[in-house]
């Protein structure tokens, strides 16, 4: 460990201790303070713009700093923004509310903790919406971490007063079948028989001992499926096997990075609704009137997009204006070649 590294670590420890014990909690910026901060950031960006045009590109750590500020500072702000509702998100909501109480909904959790900021709010809102409408939930996962993320979402959902008052019971109102490896082969096998792939649930209880799924043989006993996906195996495999081959009616919630690839399936109606990224989660919270973390995070999301756009504009302005000024300088010097 170098001397510089040691110093940096000590500074981090000092800042952490300061924030943990010396700062009054919680911190909340008023609207005026929020706008002053935004103005200050805009001013610094302007200075960066001018310097970049002069040929001084800022270092990557300055860009990192701005990204950090754009994400962190809005978490303390009290700005609220109206969230427009897109048709693909409304389709998921409409599909759920059209189900009769007691209908069985299959939710496949195919993601891991890195994608949780985007997909966990979708899962929580979806559970809350389903359980508030007395739908029965069957959970599974093609990613080992998925069923564990489902447990976290379910624990949180069961704490809401309107859900807690229903005294829902595991095995009757919801069940977690756990994880199975084999990717699309698992889906294909489920098309014939769920039990063969999930002889027991997440905790080892036999499939036939769970009243909710005892009579669920295959996809034909599922009224709607919702798939949370962060990659492979994911929505593509579910569409190819469960939807196109076995006729499952399915909506999906995807990480933003793979959402764009799902639009052909949405337009071909292989998907009934699509939630894309944190924005999709926030829109779904609005549609279901169940405001949660996704809505809260949208301020940070907005600011971070603006910062990225600002840096792209600055970079391009420097590229074009800098090019012109270079040419002018060369011409003035009598060069030009």
């Amino acid at each position, binding site marked *: 460990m170098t001397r510089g590294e040691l110093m940096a670590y000590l500074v981090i420890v000092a800042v952490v201790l300061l924030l943990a014990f010396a700062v009054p909690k919680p911190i909340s910026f008023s609207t005026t303070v929020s706008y002053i901060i935004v103005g200050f950031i805009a001013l610094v960006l302007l200075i960066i713009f001018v310097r970049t045009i002069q040929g001084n590109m800022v270092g990557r750590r300055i860009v990192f700093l701005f990204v950090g500020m754009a994400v962190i500072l809005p978490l303390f702000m009290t700005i609220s923004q109206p969230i427009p509702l897109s048709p693909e998100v409304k389709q998921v909501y409409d599909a759920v509310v059209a189900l009769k109480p007691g209908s069985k909904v299959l939710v496949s959790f195919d993601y891991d903790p890195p994608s949780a900021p985007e997909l966990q709010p979708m899962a929580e809102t979806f559970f809350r919406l389903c359980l508030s409408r007395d739908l029965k939930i069957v959970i599974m996962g093609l990613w080992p971490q998925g069923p564990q993320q489902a447990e976290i979402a379910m624990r949180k959902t069961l704490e809401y007063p309107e859900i807690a008052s229903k005294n829902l019971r595991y095995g009757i109102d919801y069940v977690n079948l756990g994880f199975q*490896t084999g990717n699309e082969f698992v889906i294909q096998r489920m098309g014939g028989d769920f039990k063969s792939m999930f002889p027991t649930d997440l905790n080892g209880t036999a499939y036939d001992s769970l009243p909710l799924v005892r009579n669920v043989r295959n996809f034909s006993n599922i009224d709607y499926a919702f798939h949370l996906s962060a990659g492979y195996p994911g929505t593509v495999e579910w569409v190819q096997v469960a939807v196109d081959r076995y006729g499952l009616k399915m909506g999906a919630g995807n990480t933003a990075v793979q959402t764009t690839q799902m639009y052909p399936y949405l337009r071909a109606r292989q998907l009934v609704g699509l939630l894309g990224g944190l924005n999709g989660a926030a829109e779904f919270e609005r549609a279901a009137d169940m405001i949660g973390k996704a809505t809260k995070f949208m301020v940070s999301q907005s600011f971070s997009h603006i910062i990225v756009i600002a840096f792209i504009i600055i970079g391009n302005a420097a590229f074009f204006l800098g090019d012109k000024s270079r040419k002018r300088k060369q011409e003035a010097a009598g060069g030009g070649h």
Partner: protein
Amino acid sequence: MEIFGTWLAAFFTLGIISFLYRDNAWYKLCESIFVGISAGYWFVTLFWDNIHGLFWERITERHDYWLLIGASLGLMMLLRLIPPIGWISRWPLSFVVGATAGLYIINYFASNVMVQVENTLMPLFSAKFGDPLFSASPYSIVGNIVVAAGTFTGLVYFFFSKEHKGAFGGMAKIGIWTIMITFGASFGYTVMSRMSLLIGRMDFIFGDWLGLIR
């Protein structure tokens, strides 16, 4: 234990973030723990859910002895760890490759070619009135034309067996414009995704750990 866990999680979070300054010992420590824990996580989960849950329980309780062939193939896969007889792992590997190839031929052709082509060649004025996507509004008619033209020209661009000249070249040009706009949308969504993940971690640091967020 919960408080200790939260502080430990914060220690790891900051350790990984420290990479932004430069590669350092703290980051390397966190990275090594991540690699070890991650491998162990898969190891344990697959043992209980698959080896025990799918194989052992079905053998002992349902006497599904056909699974023994699968287990034998699985063992052959593990023999790759012993170089002199490692070649035998090609048998299960060829099973996996063959099964995947066979399944993909049908799945990809049915879902990604047939259904997509069928859905691109849509009548401009759909008979399904009231359908939000395909009603006969000018908005959806233009949309259908753009999708059909964009898909066709995009495919023309990917067709390299003929030189991109003349009318064919013109269509390929429109195809590349469509694909560029598609990549632009993908870039926008990628930024959205990456920022969301960072927001999640910052919410943990300033909310769950330091308790500074309301």
